[in-house]
C-alpha cells in the first residue's frame, strides 16, 4: 500500500541540471517535510520530483563580507550545528533548535520552510527580523528579494514554478542583541515573538516581529527607549482562530509574549 500518489524521480547531479528540470509539474524535493505531506493529502500532484538531496552545492554555509549565506539545501539541524552560524548569528541556532521535532530538524530545510510560506513558522519571523534576502534561480535567470516581498500569504510565496530558492542571505552586522520567545502547546507555535536591538542605516532601533499567530508575520520598528505596549500591539493583530485557541485568546497570549520578549531583550543588556 502506497500512501503517496505515483510520481517519477529525477536525480540531477548539479544545480544547473536541476534548474533545467524544475517546472509546475516537476517539483524540487528538499527535505520533504512539507512537500511529501502535501502529496500524501493530494494537495499537490507533481508528475516528477527533482531530488535535491545529493546536491552538495546547496548545502554550503559561508560568510560573504558580513553576510551569512545559507544554501537552499541546508537543514535546520546543519545550520544549528554550524560554528560559523553560532559565531556570527547566535540567535539563529537557538530558534532552529526549537523547530518542529528532531526528525523535522534533521530533514527539513530553511529554504523549504520559506517556499511553503508556512504561517506557523519559527524560521520566517526570525529571518524577517534579521532583514534576510532570498536568492531565486531558474534556467533563464536569477533574482533576489526580501522576506517581506517573498512571503505573500499563508502557503503562498513569490517563487515561480521554474525557480529554485538557492540561497538565504542574512546580514550579521549591527545586531546588538536578539531574543525569540514562543508559546506552543502542539506541534506548531501559537505565537512566536522576535525582539532585537539593532542598527540599520545608521539608526539605532528596537525591532519586534510577531509570527505564527496571523496569516503573515508583522514587523514593527521602535526608537530606543520607546515604550512598547504588548496588549496595544496585539490589538492590531488578526489571529487565526483554530484548535490552539480563539482569536481573542491568541490576541491575549500575543500581548503577553510581546511584553515578555521585550523584557527578555532588556535583560540581555549589559
Amino acid at each position: 500500500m502506497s500512501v503517496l500518489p505515483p510520481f517519477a524521480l529525477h536525480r540531477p547531479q548539479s544545480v544547473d541540471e536541476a534548474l533545467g528540470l524544475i517546472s509546475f509539474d516537476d517539483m524540487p524535493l528538499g527535505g520533504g517535510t512539507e512537500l511529501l505531506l502535501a502529496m500524501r493529502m493530494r494537495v499537490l500532484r507533481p508528475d516528477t520530483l527533482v531530488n535535491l538531496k545529493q546536491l552538495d552545492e546547496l548545502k554550503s554555509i559561508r560568510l560573504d563580507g558580513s553576510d551569512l549565506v545559507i544554501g537552499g539545501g541546508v537543514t535546520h539541524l546543519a545550520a544549528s550545528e554550524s560554528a560559523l552560524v553560532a559565531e556570527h548569528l547566535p540567535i539563529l541556532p537557538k530558534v532552529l533548535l526549537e523547530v518542529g521535532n528532531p526528525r523535522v530538524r534533521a530533514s527539513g530545510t530553511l529554504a523549504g520552510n520559506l517556499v511553503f510560506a508556512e504561517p506557523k513558522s519559527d524560521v520566517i519571523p526570525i529571518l524577517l527580523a534579521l532583514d534576510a534576502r532570498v536568492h531565486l534561480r531558474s534556467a533563464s535567470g536569477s533574482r533576489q528579494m526580501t522576506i517581506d516581498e517573498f512571503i505573500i500569504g499563508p502557503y503562498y510565496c513569490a517563487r515561480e514554478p521554474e525557480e529554485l530558492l538557492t540561497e538565504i542571505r542574512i546580514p550579521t552586522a549591527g545586531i546588538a542583541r536578539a531574543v525569540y520567545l514562543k508559546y506552543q502547546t502542539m506541534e506548531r507555535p501559537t505565537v512566536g515573538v522576535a525582539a532585537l536591538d539593532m542598527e540599520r542605516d545608521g539608526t539605532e532601533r528596537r525591532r519586534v516581529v510577531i509570527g505564527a499567530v496571523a496569516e503573515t508575520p508583522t514587523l514593527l520598528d521602535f526608537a530606543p527607549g520607546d515604550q512598547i505596549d504588548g496588549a496595544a500591539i496585539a490589538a492590531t493583530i488578526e489571529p487565526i482562530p483554530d484548535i490552539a485557541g480563539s482569536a481573542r485568546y491568541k490576541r491575549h497570549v500575543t500581548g503577553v509574549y510581546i511584553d515578555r520578549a521585550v523584557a527578555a531583550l532588556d535583560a540581555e543588556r549589559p
Partner: protein
Amino acid sequence: MTAESAIEITTFVNGTEQSGYVPARATVAEYLRDDLGLTGTKTSCEMEVCGVCSVLVDGRPVSACAALAADLDGTTVTTVEGLAEEGRLSHLQQAFIEKSAAQCGFCTPGFLIMATALLAANPDPTRHEIAEYLDGNICRCTGYRPIIEAVELAATRMRESA
C-alpha cells in the same frame, strides 16, 4: 537523464546489506515493513508528528512515514529490530522494561529509536533535555514519566559501562 519510476538502491539495514528496486513513491516505512518484513517500525499520524515511525538513517533520526526509500541508497539504517546486539537488549530497552515505560507498546519503537539518537548526541541529558528531545513522540498510555525515567536510567548505565 530521464525520471525513474523505480530506483535501484543498496542499503545496510540493521547490519545486513539489502539491494533491489523500490518504487519512486515508496516511503521508508513501506520499504521496511512491506519489502523487508521489519514491522517493528509503526506508522500512525504519517505527518512527522507522532514519532512512532522513527528510524535512524546514518545515525540521524528520520520519520520513515515521510522519507523516500529511494533516498536510502548508500545509507545505513537502524530500526528497533537492530537495537539489541546478539540477543542482548540495549541499555535503553532493558531500562524501558524495568521502568514499565511501555503499556500498549505501539509508541515504544519510536521512543527507543529517538532516545538512542539523543544519548548518542548527549550522553548525560537533563530531564528537561530528555523531555524536549522526545516532544515529537506521542504516548497515550504512560503519561511520559516512566519513559523519561527509563532514559535517565539507561544514560547512567551507559556512562558507567563506557
